[in-house]
Protein backbone atom coordinates (compact mmCIF):
# COMPACT_ATOMS: atom_id res chain seq x y z
CA UNK A 1 0.00 0.00 0.00
CA UNK A 2 2.78 2.39 0.95
CA UNK A 3 4.30 2.30 -2.55
CA UNK A 4 0.97 3.36 -4.02
CA UNK A 5 0.57 6.43 -1.83
CA UNK A 6 4.16 7.02 -0.85
CA UNK A 7 3.18 6.20 2.76
CA UNK A 8 0.58 4.09 4.50
CA UNK A 9 -2.94 5.48 4.06
CA UNK A 10 -3.63 4.58 7.70
CA UNK A 11 -1.00 7.04 8.94
CA UNK A 12 -1.96 9.69 6.41
CA UNK A 13 -4.27 12.51 7.50
CA UNK A 14 -7.16 12.84 5.03
CA UNK A 15 -6.29 16.40 4.07
CA UNK A 16 -2.68 15.54 3.24
CA UNK A 17 -3.08 14.32 -0.34
CA UNK A 18 0.23 14.02 -2.22
CA UNK A 19 0.95 17.08 -4.34
CA UNK A 20 2.15 15.00 -7.28
CA UNK A 21 2.41 11.39 -8.38
CA UNK A 22 6.17 11.00 -8.03
CA UNK A 23 8.13 9.86 -4.99
CA UNK A 24 11.63 8.63 -4.27
CA UNK A 25 10.53 5.02 -4.72
CA UNK A 26 8.80 5.66 -8.05
CA UNK A 27 11.77 7.64 -9.33
CA UNK A 28 14.06 4.69 -8.56
CA UNK A 29 11.49 2.37 -10.16
CA UNK A 30 11.31 4.66 -13.19
CA UNK A 31 15.10 4.77 -13.56
CA UNK A 32 15.29 0.97 -13.30
CA UNK A 33 12.53 0.62 -15.90
CA UNK A 34 14.27 3.02 -18.27
CA UNK A 35 17.60 1.19 -17.90
CA UNK A 36 15.79 -2.11 -18.39
CA UNK A 37 14.10 -0.87 -21.55
CA UNK A 38 17.46 0.20 -22.99
CA UNK A 39 18.94 -3.20 -22.11
CA UNK A 40 15.94 -5.00 -23.57
CA UNK A 41 16.17 -2.98 -26.79
CA UNK A 42 19.86 -3.86 -27.14
CA UNK A 43 19.30 -7.57 -26.40
CA UNK A 44 16.18 -7.84 -28.57
CA UNK A 45 17.43 -5.99 -31.63
CA UNK A 46 21.23 -6.30 -31.57
CA UNK A 47 22.63 -9.07 -29.38
CA UNK A 48 20.06 -11.86 -29.70
CA UNK A 49 20.14 -13.88 -32.90
CA UNK A 50 17.19 -14.33 -35.26
CA UNK A 51 15.29 -17.60 -34.81
CA UNK A 52 16.88 -19.69 -37.53
CA UNK A 53 17.68 -23.39 -37.38
CA UNK A 54 18.66 -26.01 -39.91
CA UNK A 55 15.59 -27.49 -41.56
CA UNK A 56 14.93 -31.14 -42.40
CA UNK A 57 16.30 -30.61 -45.90
CA UNK A 58 20.01 -29.99 -46.28
CA UNK A 59 20.85 -26.31 -46.70
CA UNK A 60 17.43 -25.06 -45.62
CA UNK A 61 16.69 -22.95 -42.56
CA UNK A 62 13.46 -22.90 -40.57
CA UNK A 63 12.27 -20.58 -37.81
CA UNK A 64 10.60 -17.24 -37.25
CA UNK A 65 13.76 -15.35 -38.29
CA UNK A 66 13.59 -11.65 -37.27
CA UNK A 67 9.87 -11.90 -36.37
CA UNK A 68 10.95 -13.65 -33.16
CA UNK A 69 12.03 -10.25 -31.79
CA UNK A 70 8.37 -9.34 -31.36
CA UNK A 71 8.10 -12.19 -28.84
CA UNK A 72 10.21 -10.15 -26.37
CA UNK A 73 7.35 -7.65 -26.15
CA UNK A 74 4.34 -9.83 -27.03
CA UNK A 75 4.78 -12.55 -24.42
CA UNK A 76 5.73 -10.21 -21.50
CA UNK A 77 2.77 -7.97 -22.38
CA UNK A 78 0.46 -11.01 -22.32
CA UNK A 79 1.82 -12.21 -18.95
CA UNK A 80 1.42 -8.78 -17.33
CA UNK A 81 -2.04 -8.42 -18.86
CA UNK A 82 -3.06 -11.47 -16.82
CA UNK A 83 -1.38 -10.07 -13.70
CA UNK A 84 -2.91 -6.58 -14.08
CA UNK A 85 -6.42 -7.82 -14.82
CA UNK A 86 -6.12 -10.51 -12.14
CA UNK A 87 -5.16 -7.81 -9.63
CA UNK A 88 -8.13 -5.74 -10.83
CA UNK A 89 -10.40 -8.72 -10.12
CA UNK A 90 -8.85 -9.31 -6.70
CA UNK A 91 -9.15 -5.60 -5.78
CA UNK A 92 -12.76 -5.62 -7.03
CA UNK A 93 -13.55 -8.57 -4.79
CA UNK A 94 -12.01 -6.85 -1.77
CA UNK A 95 -13.93 -3.66 -2.61
CA UNK A 96 -17.22 -5.58 -2.62
CA UNK A 97 -16.29 -7.02 0.76
CA UNK A 98 -14.76 -3.97 2.49
CA UNK A 99 -16.33 -1.09 0.47
CA UNK A 100 -13.04 0.79 0.60
CA UNK A 101 -12.34 3.41 -2.09
CA UNK A 102 -8.66 2.43 -1.94
CA UNK A 103 -9.39 -0.99 -3.44
CA UNK A 104 -11.73 0.51 -6.03
CA UNK A 105 -9.00 2.87 -7.22
CA UNK A 106 -6.48 0.03 -7.31
CA UNK A 107 -8.91 -2.00 -9.46
CA UNK A 108 -9.39 0.98 -11.78
CA UNK A 109 -5.64 1.60 -12.15
CA UNK A 110 -4.90 -2.08 -12.81
CA UNK A 111 -7.73 -2.34 -15.35
CA UNK A 112 -6.31 0.59 -17.33
CA UNK A 113 -2.81 -0.91 -17.35
CA UNK A 114 -4.28 -4.32 -18.25
CA UNK A 115 -6.25 -2.94 -21.18
CA UNK A 116 -3.18 -1.12 -22.54
CA UNK A 117 -1.04 -4.27 -22.19
CA UNK A 118 -3.76 -6.40 -23.78
CA UNK A 119 -3.87 -3.98 -26.74
CA UNK A 120 -0.07 -4.27 -27.03
CA UNK A 121 -0.41 -8.08 -26.96
CA UNK A 122 -3.03 -8.05 -29.72
CA UNK A 123 -1.17 -5.55 -31.93
CA UNK A 124 2.23 -7.25 -31.63
CA UNK A 125 0.51 -10.60 -32.22
CA UNK A 126 -1.05 -9.31 -35.43
CA UNK A 127 2.26 -7.85 -36.65
CA UNK A 128 3.96 -11.19 -35.85
CA UNK A 129 1.15 -13.24 -37.41
CA UNK A 130 1.41 -11.64 -40.85
CA UNK A 131 4.92 -12.91 -41.71
CA UNK A 132 4.85 -16.09 -39.59
CA UNK A 133 1.30 -17.45 -39.99
CA UNK A 134 0.57 -15.70 -43.25
CA UNK A 135 -2.42 -13.78 -41.86
CA UNK A 136 -3.02 -10.72 -39.67
CA UNK A 137 -5.94 -12.33 -37.84
CA UNK A 138 -7.55 -15.74 -37.48
CA UNK A 139 -11.15 -15.81 -36.29
CA UNK A 140 -11.11 -19.57 -35.82
CA UNK A 141 -8.27 -19.46 -33.26
CA UNK A 142 -9.46 -19.70 -29.66
CA UNK A 143 -6.44 -17.93 -28.10
CA UNK A 144 -6.65 -14.99 -30.51
CA UNK A 145 -10.40 -14.45 -30.20
CA UNK A 146 -10.62 -14.95 -26.42
CA UNK A 147 -7.82 -12.39 -25.99
CA UNK A 148 -9.88 -9.95 -28.05
CA UNK A 149 -12.92 -10.69 -25.88
CA UNK A 150 -10.83 -10.11 -22.72
CA UNK A 151 -9.72 -6.75 -24.14
CA UNK A 152 -13.31 -5.76 -24.98
CA UNK A 153 -14.66 -6.79 -21.57
CA UNK A 154 -12.17 -4.60 -19.71
CA UNK A 155 -12.45 -1.76 -22.27
CA UNK A 156 -16.18 -1.94 -21.50
CA UNK A 157 -15.32 -1.91 -17.78
CA UNK A 158 -13.39 1.34 -18.25
CA UNK A 159 -16.19 2.84 -20.33
CA UNK A 160 -18.72 1.86 -17.68
CA UNK A 161 -16.60 3.55 -15.04
CA UNK A 162 -16.76 6.81 -16.96
CA UNK A 163 -20.59 6.79 -17.07
CA UNK A 164 -21.60 9.57 -14.65
CA UNK A 165 -23.13 8.02 -11.54
CA UNK A 166 -22.95 8.15 -7.76
CA UNK A 167 -19.38 7.05 -6.83
CA UNK A 168 -20.53 4.09 -4.71
CA UNK A 169 -22.93 2.78 -7.34
CA UNK A 170 -20.28 3.20 -10.06
CA UNK A 171 -17.67 1.39 -7.97
CA UNK A 172 -20.08 -1.45 -7.14
CA UNK A 173 -21.06 -2.01 -10.79
CA UNK A 174 -17.43 -1.82 -11.91
CA UNK A 175 -16.33 -4.28 -9.20
CA UNK A 176 -18.90 -6.85 -10.29
CA UNK A 177 -17.73 -6.59 -13.91
CA UNK A 178 -14.05 -6.48 -12.90
CA UNK A 179 -14.49 -9.65 -10.88
CA UNK A 180 -16.67 -11.45 -13.44
CA UNK A 181 -14.37 -10.60 -16.37
CA UNK A 182 -11.53 -12.43 -14.65
CA UNK A 183 -13.20 -15.74 -15.55
CA UNK A 184 -11.74 -15.16 -19.01
CA UNK A 185 -8.12 -15.02 -17.80
CA UNK A 186 -7.65 -18.79 -17.26
CA UNK A 187 -9.62 -19.49 -20.45
CA UNK A 188 -7.30 -17.27 -22.50
CA UNK A 189 -4.20 -18.60 -20.78
CA UNK A 190 -5.05 -22.30 -20.96
CA UNK A 191 -6.81 -22.27 -24.36
CA UNK A 192 -3.71 -23.44 -26.24
CA UNK A 193 -3.42 -26.41 -23.91
CA UNK A 194 -7.14 -27.25 -23.76
CA UNK A 195 -7.44 -27.06 -27.56
CA UNK A 196 -3.96 -28.46 -28.20
CA UNK A 197 -3.48 -29.34 -31.89
CA UNK A 198 -6.79 -27.59 -32.63
CA UNK A 199 -5.48 -24.03 -32.65
CA UNK A 200 -3.11 -22.04 -34.81
CA UNK A 201 -1.46 -20.35 -31.84
CA UNK A 202 1.57 -22.16 -30.52
CA UNK A 203 1.66 -23.83 -27.09
CA UNK A 204 3.25 -22.16 -24.07
CA UNK A 205 6.88 -21.24 -24.69
CA UNK A 206 7.91 -21.05 -21.04
CA UNK A 207 6.15 -24.17 -19.70
CA UNK A 208 7.95 -26.58 -21.99
CA UNK A 209 11.01 -24.33 -22.14
CA UNK A 210 12.09 -25.31 -25.62
CA UNK A 211 14.13 -22.14 -25.74
CA UNK A 212 17.68 -21.46 -24.61
CA UNK A 213 20.70 -19.16 -24.44
CA UNK A 214 20.34 -15.49 -25.33
CA UNK A 215 16.81 -15.97 -26.65
CA UNK A 216 15.71 -17.22 -23.23
CA UNK A 217 17.67 -14.51 -21.42
CA UNK A 218 16.11 -11.75 -23.56
CA UNK A 219 12.64 -13.17 -23.01
CA UNK A 220 13.11 -13.28 -19.22
CA UNK A 221 14.56 -9.75 -19.32
CA UNK A 222 11.50 -8.64 -21.30
CA UNK A 223 9.19 -10.12 -18.66
CA UNK A 224 11.07 -8.36 -15.84
CA UNK A 225 11.19 -5.00 -17.63
CA UNK A 226 7.51 -5.19 -18.61
CA UNK A 227 6.74 -5.97 -14.96
CA UNK A 228 8.67 -2.92 -13.76
CA UNK A 229 6.97 -0.74 -16.38
CA UNK A 230 3.53 -2.07 -15.42
CA UNK A 231 4.19 -1.44 -11.73
CA UNK A 232 5.49 2.08 -12.40
CA UNK A 233 2.44 2.89 -14.53
CA UNK A 234 0.03 1.34 -12.02
CA UNK A 235 1.47 3.32 -9.10
CA UNK A 236 1.22 6.59 -11.00
CA UNK A 237 -2.27 5.81 -12.28
CA UNK A 238 -3.39 4.95 -8.77
CA UNK A 239 -2.03 8.23 -7.43
CA UNK A 240 -3.70 10.19 -10.24
CA UNK A 241 -7.01 8.53 -9.33
CA UNK A 242 -6.42 9.36 -5.67
CA UNK A 243 -5.67 13.01 -6.49
CA UNK A 244 -8.72 13.20 -8.77
CA UNK A 245 -10.92 11.98 -5.92
CA UNK A 246 -9.30 14.44 -3.50
CA UNK A 247 -9.81 17.30 -5.98
CA UNK A 248 -13.42 16.28 -6.55
CA UNK A 249 -14.05 16.11 -2.82
CA UNK A 250 -12.35 19.47 -2.23
CA UNK A 251 -14.35 21.04 -5.07
CA UNK A 252 -17.57 19.70 -3.58
CA UNK A 253 -16.69 21.06 -0.15
CA UNK A 254 -15.93 24.46 -1.70
CA UNK A 255 -19.24 24.47 -3.61
CA UNK A 256 -21.16 23.57 -0.44
CA UNK A 257 -19.36 26.26 1.55
CA UNK A 258 -20.26 28.75 -1.16
CA UNK A 259 -23.95 27.73 -1.01
CA UNK A 260 -23.97 27.94 2.78
CA UNK A 261 -22.41 31.41 2.60
CA UNK A 262 -24.98 32.49 -0.01
CA UNK A 263 -27.84 31.08 2.12
CA UNK A 264 -26.43 32.83 5.21
CA UNK A 265 -26.10 36.13 3.33
CA UNK A 266 -29.65 35.78 2.00
CA UNK A 267 -31.03 35.10 5.46
CA UNK A 268 -29.18 38.13 6.90
CA UNK A 269 -30.37 40.35 4.05
CA UNK A 270 -34.01 39.35 4.55
CA UNK A 271 -33.96 39.76 8.35
CA UNK A 272 -35.18 43.18 9.67
Amino acid at each position, binding site marked *: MSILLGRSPDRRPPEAAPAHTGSRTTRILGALTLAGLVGLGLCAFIFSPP*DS*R*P*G*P*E*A*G*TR*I*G*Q*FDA*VRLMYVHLPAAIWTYVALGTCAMASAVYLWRRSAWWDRLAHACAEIGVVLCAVTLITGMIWGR*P*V*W*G*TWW*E*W*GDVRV*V*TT*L*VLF*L*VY*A*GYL*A*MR*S*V*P*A*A*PEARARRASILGLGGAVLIPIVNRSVEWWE*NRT*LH*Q*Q*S*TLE*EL*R*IEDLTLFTLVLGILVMGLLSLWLAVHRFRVAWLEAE*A*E*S*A*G*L*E*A*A*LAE*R*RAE*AGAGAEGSSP
Partner: protein
Amino acid sequence: MSETPGDPELPPAGATESDAAAGLDLTPRRTGSRPGRRAPTVRRIISLLVVAGAVGGITFALVRLVTDASLFFLNADEAVERRDELAGQRFRMQGTPLAHSVAETRVDFEQAVSFTVAFEGVAADVVHVGSPPDLFTPGVPVVLEGRWVEGQPPDLDTFACGVNDGYYFASDHMLVKHDNEYRDTYPDRLEAAGAGGASAAC
Protein backbone atom coordinates in the same frame (compact mmCIF):
# COMPACT_ATOMS: atom_id res chain seq x y z
CA MET B 1 -16.34 22.28 -8.70
CA SER B 2 -20.02 22.54 -9.34
CA GLU B 3 -20.28 19.37 -11.42
CA THR B 4 -21.33 16.59 -9.12
CA PRO B 5 -21.64 13.13 -10.63
CA GLY B 6 -24.59 11.17 -9.43
CA ASP B 7 -28.32 11.38 -9.16
CA PRO B 8 -29.38 15.04 -9.24
CA GLU B 9 -32.35 14.10 -7.03
CA LEU B 10 -30.03 13.16 -4.20
CA PRO B 11 -27.97 15.61 -2.12
CA PRO B 12 -24.25 15.58 -2.96
CA ALA B 13 -21.96 13.35 -0.93
CA GLY B 14 -20.60 16.18 1.26
CA ALA B 15 -23.97 17.71 2.09
CA THR B 16 -25.42 17.20 5.54
CA GLU B 17 -29.06 16.53 6.37
CA SER B 18 -29.21 19.98 7.97
CA ASP B 19 -28.28 21.52 4.60
CA ALA B 20 -31.33 19.95 3.02
CA ALA B 21 -33.47 20.72 6.06
CA ALA B 22 -32.37 24.34 5.92
CA GLY B 23 -33.75 24.53 2.39
CA LEU B 24 -30.32 24.94 0.83
CA ASP B 25 -30.54 24.64 -2.97
CA LEU B 26 -28.23 21.69 -3.72
CA THR B 27 -28.97 21.43 -7.43
CA PRO B 28 -25.64 21.11 -9.27
CA ARG B 29 -24.78 24.29 -11.16
CA ARG B 30 -23.65 24.01 -14.73
CA THR B 31 -21.68 27.26 -14.76
CA GLY B 32 -18.04 27.11 -13.82
CA SER B 33 -17.51 23.50 -14.89
CA ARG B 34 -13.93 22.45 -15.17
CA PRO B 35 -12.60 23.65 -18.53
CA GLY B 36 -12.05 20.84 -21.00
CA ARG B 37 -14.39 18.51 -19.14
CA ARG B 38 -17.48 17.37 -21.05
CA ALA B 39 -20.97 17.88 -19.67
CA PRO B 40 -22.31 14.81 -17.80
CA THR B 41 -24.92 14.10 -20.50
CA VAL B 42 -22.30 14.05 -23.27
CA ARG B 43 -20.00 11.91 -21.12
CA ARG B 44 -22.86 9.54 -20.39
CA ILE B 45 -23.75 9.19 -24.10
CA ILE B 46 -20.12 8.63 -25.16
CA SER B 47 -19.50 6.13 -22.36
CA LEU B 48 -22.70 4.22 -23.09
CA LEU B 49 -21.80 4.11 -26.80
CA VAL B 50 -18.39 2.63 -25.91
CA VAL B 51 -20.06 0.07 -23.60
CA ALA B 52 -22.52 -0.83 -26.38
CA GLY B 53 -19.60 -1.08 -28.85
CA ALA B 54 -17.76 -3.43 -26.48
CA VAL B 55 -20.84 -5.63 -26.03
CA GLY B 56 -21.38 -5.67 -29.82
CA GLY B 57 -17.71 -6.48 -30.40
CA ILE B 58 -17.77 -9.36 -27.89
CA THR B 59 -20.91 -10.80 -29.50
CA PHE B 60 -19.42 -10.51 -33.00
CA ALA B 61 -16.10 -12.09 -31.93
CA LEU B 62 -17.81 -15.03 -30.23
CA VAL B 63 -20.15 -15.64 -33.17
CA ARG B 64 -17.16 -15.59 -35.57
CA LEU B 65 -15.21 -17.93 -33.29
CA VAL B 66 -18.06 -20.42 -33.08
CA THR B 67 -18.76 -20.18 -36.83
CA ASP B 68 -15.11 -20.62 -37.85
CA ALA B 69 -14.35 -23.22 -35.21
CA SER B 70 -17.33 -25.27 -36.36
CA LEU B 71 -15.21 -26.24 -39.38
CA PHE B 72 -13.57 -29.56 -38.47
CA PHE B 73 -9.94 -29.15 -37.43
CA LEU B 74 -8.27 -32.51 -37.92
CA ASN B 75 -4.71 -33.67 -37.76
CA ALA B 76 -3.46 -35.49 -40.86
CA ASP B 77 -3.72 -38.90 -39.20
CA GLU B 78 -7.36 -38.28 -38.21
CA ALA B 79 -8.18 -36.89 -41.67
CA VAL B 80 -6.81 -40.00 -43.34
CA GLU B 81 -8.62 -42.30 -40.93
CA ARG B 82 -11.96 -40.52 -41.50
CA ARG B 83 -11.52 -40.03 -45.27
CA ASP B 84 -14.71 -41.88 -46.28
CA GLU B 85 -16.80 -39.99 -43.76
CA LEU B 86 -15.31 -36.64 -44.86
CA ALA B 87 -15.85 -37.19 -48.60
CA GLY B 88 -16.67 -33.85 -50.24
CA GLN B 89 -16.72 -32.06 -46.89
CA ARG B 90 -14.64 -28.94 -46.30
CA PHE B 91 -12.42 -29.06 -43.21
CA ARG B 92 -9.06 -27.98 -41.81
CA MET B 93 -6.12 -30.34 -41.75
CA GLN B 94 -2.91 -29.93 -39.80
CA GLY B 95 0.38 -31.58 -40.62
CA THR B 96 4.07 -31.02 -41.21
CA PRO B 97 5.34 -30.91 -44.81
CA LEU B 98 7.85 -33.68 -45.39
CA ALA B 99 11.36 -33.05 -46.64
CA HIS B 100 11.81 -33.20 -50.43
CA SER B 101 8.06 -33.41 -51.04
CA VAL B 102 7.43 -29.81 -52.10
CA ALA B 103 7.07 -29.16 -55.83
CA GLU B 104 5.55 -26.34 -57.85
CA THR B 105 2.68 -27.21 -60.18
CA ARG B 106 -0.36 -25.62 -61.84
CA VAL B 107 -4.08 -26.29 -61.43
CA ASP B 108 -6.42 -24.77 -64.04
CA PHE B 109 -3.64 -22.34 -65.07
CA GLU B 110 -3.28 -21.18 -61.46
CA GLN B 111 -0.05 -21.40 -59.50
CA ALA B 112 -0.09 -24.33 -57.09
CA VAL B 113 2.24 -26.31 -54.89
CA SER B 114 2.16 -30.02 -54.20
CA PHE B 115 3.61 -31.63 -51.09
CA THR B 116 2.97 -34.29 -48.47
CA VAL B 117 2.17 -33.59 -44.83
CA ALA B 118 2.43 -35.96 -41.89
CA PHE B 119 1.13 -36.09 -38.35
CA GLU B 120 1.90 -38.85 -35.85
CA GLY B 121 3.52 -40.85 -38.62
CA VAL B 122 0.54 -40.78 -41.01
CA ALA B 123 1.05 -38.90 -44.28
CA ALA B 124 -1.34 -37.28 -46.78
CA ASP B 125 -0.70 -35.77 -50.21
CA VAL B 126 -1.74 -32.15 -50.74
CA VAL B 127 -2.21 -29.77 -53.66
CA HIS B 128 -2.51 -26.16 -52.54
CA VAL B 129 -3.75 -23.62 -55.08
CA GLY B 130 -2.34 -20.12 -54.59
CA SER B 131 0.82 -18.68 -53.09
CA PRO B 132 1.88 -20.34 -49.86
CA PRO B 133 2.88 -18.09 -46.90
CA ASP B 134 6.47 -16.79 -46.87
CA LEU B 135 7.59 -19.19 -44.12
CA PHE B 136 6.11 -22.29 -45.75
CA THR B 137 8.86 -24.89 -45.87
CA PRO B 138 9.33 -28.57 -45.00
CA GLY B 139 9.59 -29.15 -41.26
CA VAL B 140 7.25 -26.29 -40.26
CA PRO B 141 3.62 -27.36 -39.54
CA VAL B 142 0.80 -25.95 -41.66
CA VAL B 143 -2.98 -25.71 -41.29
CA LEU B 144 -4.76 -26.27 -44.61
CA GLU B 145 -8.38 -25.69 -45.52
CA GLY B 146 -10.02 -27.74 -48.28
CA ARG B 147 -11.42 -31.20 -49.01
CA TRP B 148 -10.41 -34.70 -50.06
CA VAL B 149 -10.36 -35.41 -53.79
CA GLU B 150 -10.14 -38.91 -55.26
CA GLY B 151 -7.78 -39.37 -58.19
CA GLN B 152 -4.65 -37.70 -59.43
CA PRO B 153 -4.36 -33.90 -59.70
CA PRO B 154 -4.11 -32.52 -63.27
CA ASP B 155 -0.57 -31.86 -64.55
CA LEU B 156 0.91 -34.01 -61.79
CA ASP B 157 1.97 -37.58 -62.44
CA THR B 158 3.11 -38.39 -58.95
CA PHE B 159 3.73 -36.75 -55.55
CA ALA B 160 7.46 -36.60 -54.92
CA CYS B 161 8.12 -38.50 -51.70
CA GLY B 162 4.33 -38.77 -51.31
CA VAL B 163 1.85 -41.45 -50.33
CA ASN B 164 0.35 -41.69 -53.85
CA ASP B 165 -2.66 -43.66 -52.62
CA GLY B 166 -5.15 -42.24 -55.12
CA TYR B 167 -6.37 -39.41 -52.87
CA TYR B 168 -5.10 -35.89 -52.31
CA PHE B 169 -6.20 -32.96 -50.16
CA ALA B 170 -7.18 -30.00 -52.38
CA SER B 171 -6.39 -26.88 -50.35
CA ASP B 172 -7.11 -23.23 -51.11
CA HIS B 173 -6.19 -21.68 -47.77
CA MET B 174 -2.92 -22.27 -45.96
CA LEU B 175 -1.55 -20.92 -42.68
CA VAL B 176 1.82 -21.70 -41.21
CA LYS B 177 1.59 -22.94 -37.64
CA HIS B 178 4.83 -22.16 -35.88
CA ASP B 179 5.44 -24.31 -32.84
CA ASN B 180 7.13 -23.29 -29.59
CA GLU B 181 10.46 -24.83 -30.55
CA TYR B 182 13.39 -22.40 -30.51
CA ARG B 183 16.21 -24.95 -30.40
CA ASP B 184 17.92 -26.91 -33.12
CA THR B 185 15.76 -29.91 -33.90
CA TYR B 186 18.08 -31.16 -36.63
CA PRO B 187 21.48 -30.54 -35.00
CA ASP B 188 23.25 -33.04 -37.23
CA ARG B 189 21.81 -31.66 -40.46
CA LEU B 190 24.52 -29.07 -41.23
CA GLU B 191 27.27 -31.54 -40.46
CA ALA B 192 25.62 -34.11 -42.68
CA ALA B 193 25.26 -31.56 -45.46
CA GLY B 194 28.86 -30.47 -45.04
CA ALA B 195 30.04 -34.03 -45.28
CA GLY B 196 27.88 -34.63 -48.28
CA GLY B 197 25.76 -36.98 -46.27
CA ALA B 198 22.40 -35.40 -47.08
CA SER B 199 20.82 -36.39 -50.31
CA ALA B 200 17.64 -35.47 -52.11
CA ALA B 201 16.26 -38.92 -51.37
CA CYS B 202 13.00 -39.13 -49.38
